């Protein structure tokens, strides 16, 4: 697997003072952070804390009212993702970025085959060779622990855990540098969750992916993320290394979160 060597003096993603309101309700207030290549960052908080608003804003899905979101492009310049042309943005979201949704129905085409789900990004980049597409799809099915014999089945016939793994394969096939994940493990049985988490942990390390993962599950953050941000009512109240925030929480809200669960 070849990777472009990236100048690490610049972050992959730079988020500066982004805010978003819905009417008079402030959903997100002045969030800032830099994300570096290979870094996995968890965003935690209860529902309504603004973490999904943050994710959508930094993933180019919903423009914030104020502030700046910049991504390091292949020519090593930080580029404002909201002033790109639509074609540029599309290319970015099909190649350099991935987005893993909480509900697999939002991230997969449920009525086309597993193989076609995986091949779609490659085809949009111009790959037309049927044999190569099929071979790549088979390889990726194996990597996410789905029997390649299921390549012609649609995700409708898959279990919840398999669908999430297929969603991951569909996103990672173009070897993106940055992947956004919105509660990827919630709604799965515990044993299925463990398998998915282990897979995510392996893939993020092997591929040196930068990841922003939104989760309400502190154990998921502990296992996958290098660092984390805690949100409450649209505000980032605490940030740091994952184990620092979990083992030595400073903010009252973080202390409450940590003390409310059984050994994250």
């Amino acid at each position: 697997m070849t990777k472009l060597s990236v100048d690490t003096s610049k972050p992959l993603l730079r988020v500066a003072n982004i805010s978003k309101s819905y009417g008079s309700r402030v959903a997100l207030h002045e969030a800032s952070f830099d994300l570096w290549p290979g870094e996995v960052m968890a965003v935690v908080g209860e529902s309504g804390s603004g973490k999904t608003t943050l994710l959508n804003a930094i993933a180019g899905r919903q423009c914030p009212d104020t502030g700046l979101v910049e991504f390091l492009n292949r020519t090593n310049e930080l580029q404002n993702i909201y002033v790109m042309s639509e074609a540029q943005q599309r290319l970015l979201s099909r190649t350099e970025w991935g987005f893993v949704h909480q509900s697999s129905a939002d991230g997969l085409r449920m009525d086309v085959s597993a193989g076609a789900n995986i091949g779609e990004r490659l085809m949009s980049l111009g790959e037309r060779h049927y044999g190569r597409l099929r071979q790549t799809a088979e390889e990726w099915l194996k990597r996410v622990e789905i029997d390649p014999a299921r390549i012609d089945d649609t995700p409708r016939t898959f279990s919840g855990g398999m669908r999430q793994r297929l969603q991951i394969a569909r996103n990672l096939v173009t070897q993106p540098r940055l992947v956004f994940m919105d509660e990827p493990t919630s709604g799965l049985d515990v044993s299925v969750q463990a398998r998915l988490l282990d897979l995510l942990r392996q893939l993020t390390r092997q591929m040196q992916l930068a990841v922003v993962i939104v989760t309400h599950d502190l154990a998921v953050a502990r296992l996958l993320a290098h660092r984390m941000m805690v949100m409450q009512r649209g505000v980032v109240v605490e940030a740091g290394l994952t184990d620092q925030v979990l083992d030595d929480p400073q903010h009252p809200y973080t202390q409450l979160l940590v003390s409310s669960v059984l050994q994250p």
Partner: protein
Amino acid sequence: MMLQLKKVTKQFTLHHQHGVQLNVLNNVDMSVSSGECVVLDGPSGMGKSTLLKLIYANYRASSGEIEVRQADGSTLELTKADPRELVRMRRHTVGYVSQFLRVIPRVSALDVVAEPLIEDVAHDIAAVEKAREIARALLTRLRIPERLWELPPATFSGGEQQRINIARNMIKPQPILLLDEPTASLDAANTQTVIDLIHEALARGAALVGIFHDAHVGKAVATRHIDVTQFRSAQ
């Protein structure tokens, strides 16, 4: 000088316990050089583990400075470092043997141990195999039966998990090593193996700071003792 703490204090504020403030460590000044093994003494509850956790940046110092000489020769001041620098510091400079193994689901004991080496070689298959070879040798030294190597350690006994934890965190020859009661649940033979491993780390020039429940182990490895009760402030 590998490690230097300057006027480090640590207090915990418990916001949901009426804002109680616990002053655990006060004015810690200490430094550790290459080839030294500093053993922390003092009754439990005096902040020995807290001190190790501050050096590992697991806890955040309330004030003061913690300087670590990194593998590349530069100095990192932990209280001002960003997460990325701390991740790098842990990967290349400071190892930490905690009291308990934090289990990773589905990963075999062998790979749990080899992982710190595998992380550095990524896709080089020969190097990955070499890392596993080193892990096998270490598991053998620590008397983990071969039939357990391919199993995830979740179901292992406390003593077995502790030995996996030691192997995982000592497999890579880090310049600085922190040890929090690594022999607490080990038998005499394995305790002696850990003492040997510590002596080997010292011989290659590592700087060690450790807590040893068992006084004879502390005596066997210490080049210097520090009594942490001196860092205790009036509550």
